[in-house]
């Protein structure tokens, strides 16, 4: 049965929402990012109950719910646990142009993985189990991008 709807020119209204935020980084991550910015070092924190070391650090252990008071400086080296070569472009979201590589890196001295870029290597050459080290940016702002990427240890 024909309907009046069949003849309607359905319009599309183009919109965009842009709202500013000033996110407080909190004491735990602030300390992490200040160490990274000022000294170029990666720190984690250890659970006094189970001994697990978290990086990026957390305020409490997710398993024990204990305060993570003990800070440990990590050497910045680690092993690639998994990775992906990103092939699509998202100019607003991605800090770099595809193809580039994300990895989960298990840092030496830590019990959690850290998601970051793997660089300084042909994306096709990246492997699980590859040994990598952090490359720290020269100009640093106090955020996760102060680590440029992790590159293979020669």
């Amino acid at each position: 049965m024909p309907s009046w709807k069949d003849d309607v020119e359905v319009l599309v209204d183009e919109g965009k929402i842009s709202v500013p935020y000033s996110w407080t980084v909190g004491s735990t991550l602030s300390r992490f990012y200040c160490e990274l910015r000022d000294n170029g070092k990666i720190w984690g924190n250890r659970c006094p109950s189970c001994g697990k070391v978290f990086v990026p650090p957390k305020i409490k252990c997710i398993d024990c719910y204990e305060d993570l008071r003990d800070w440990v400086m990590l050497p910045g080296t680690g092993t690639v646990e998994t990775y992906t070569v990103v092939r699509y472009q998202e100019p607003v979201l991605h800090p770099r142009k595809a193809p580039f590589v994300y990895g989960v890196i298990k840092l030496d001295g830590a019990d959690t993985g850290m998601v970051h870029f793997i660089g300084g290597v042909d994306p096709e050459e990246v492997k699980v189990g590859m040994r990598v080290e952090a490359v720290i940016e020269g100009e640093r702002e106090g955020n996760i991008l102060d680590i440029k990427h992790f590159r293979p240890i020669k």
Partner: protein
Amino acid sequence: MRYMEKVAIIGVGMTKYDRNSPLTFAEMVFEATSKAIEDAGISKDDVDNVVTVSSDFWDGRTISTMAVTDASNAYGRDITCVEGDGTFGALYGMMRILSGTFGITIVCAHHKGTESSMNGITNCAFDPLVERKLGLDAVSSAALQARRYMEKHGLLEEQFALVSVKNHGNAMRNPRSLLPMEITVDDVMNSRKIADPLKLLDCSPVTDGACTLVLAPERQAKKLTTTKKRVWMKGVGHCTDAFRLGDRDLADTRALKKAAKRAYDMAGIVDPREEIDFAEVYDAFSYMEPLWLEGLGICDDGKGCEYLERGWFDYGGKLPVNPSGGRLSANPVQAAGLYAMAEATLQLRGKAGKHQVRGAGTALVHGINGMCGQSHCVWILGR
């Protein structure tokens, strides 16, 4: 655990999956909810409360539940919202009824994925102080999970491709489906690379859709509907894993295992492999189907692909998985889990049409929330 009262699904309504639907999301909810009320054979005045499933980010408006108040028949009634998958919305609806405070409950979910940016919105699910700045989104994080799963158990991309072949093939029998396709493993392997190891045909499509369920307490369900119509919510379980990807082993399904055990215990299921007749499992990406089937205890860890290759999960197999075509064939995010429950309801009524699973008496429906299946909800539905 024994409950005084049971809860039944007495009505379902779905819009046909679409892309760039000419309807607003509220209009889609009107359509799905009208169909569900009609399907239940009740009056809209029999309903006393509404649970909506929506996300402010997807809808592009805050307090998104209020935008569908009229459409979900909540005007003049109580309305509340779940921001997560529809399976969790149904859980909230059931809990409201079991509390004794509410009677007939509408649970509705909508999604207009084609109105916004999937990557932009899923990027905003990440901590703005850590991973969000890296540009991660649902697809790139899923790719990290897929690779980890492959490495842990020595799996191949070709095995994941089989899931896509099966589910797009199943969609050929579902008239509501968005992407019914007869494809081969080669087609999947040769489709555009998105984020290794995921190719285009390993990923679910951006989809528009709305779905509504009508839930009723036992005594009303028995009064208002026939045995053929009502489907019982026999068991449910849910569980959540760590938020940060690096805090989990992405190939470990510990949260799902707990959720499944709770659902099985509640439904009195001892051996899910033997007692479940078919399953709708959250296949937002091809690799997820075998991974979640392992978490659900249908197969041992690392064996999902082996069973898949043996045809266990085919439409005519021992335990058909995603006979509707799954999320790979249509994935209105958040609404998708509710669609799966509606699909399962039609199957259990014996009214699924061309994709009817023969002898469907007990169904498993699974939904996820959060990146890489951080949170899981498992339902056992039955006649």
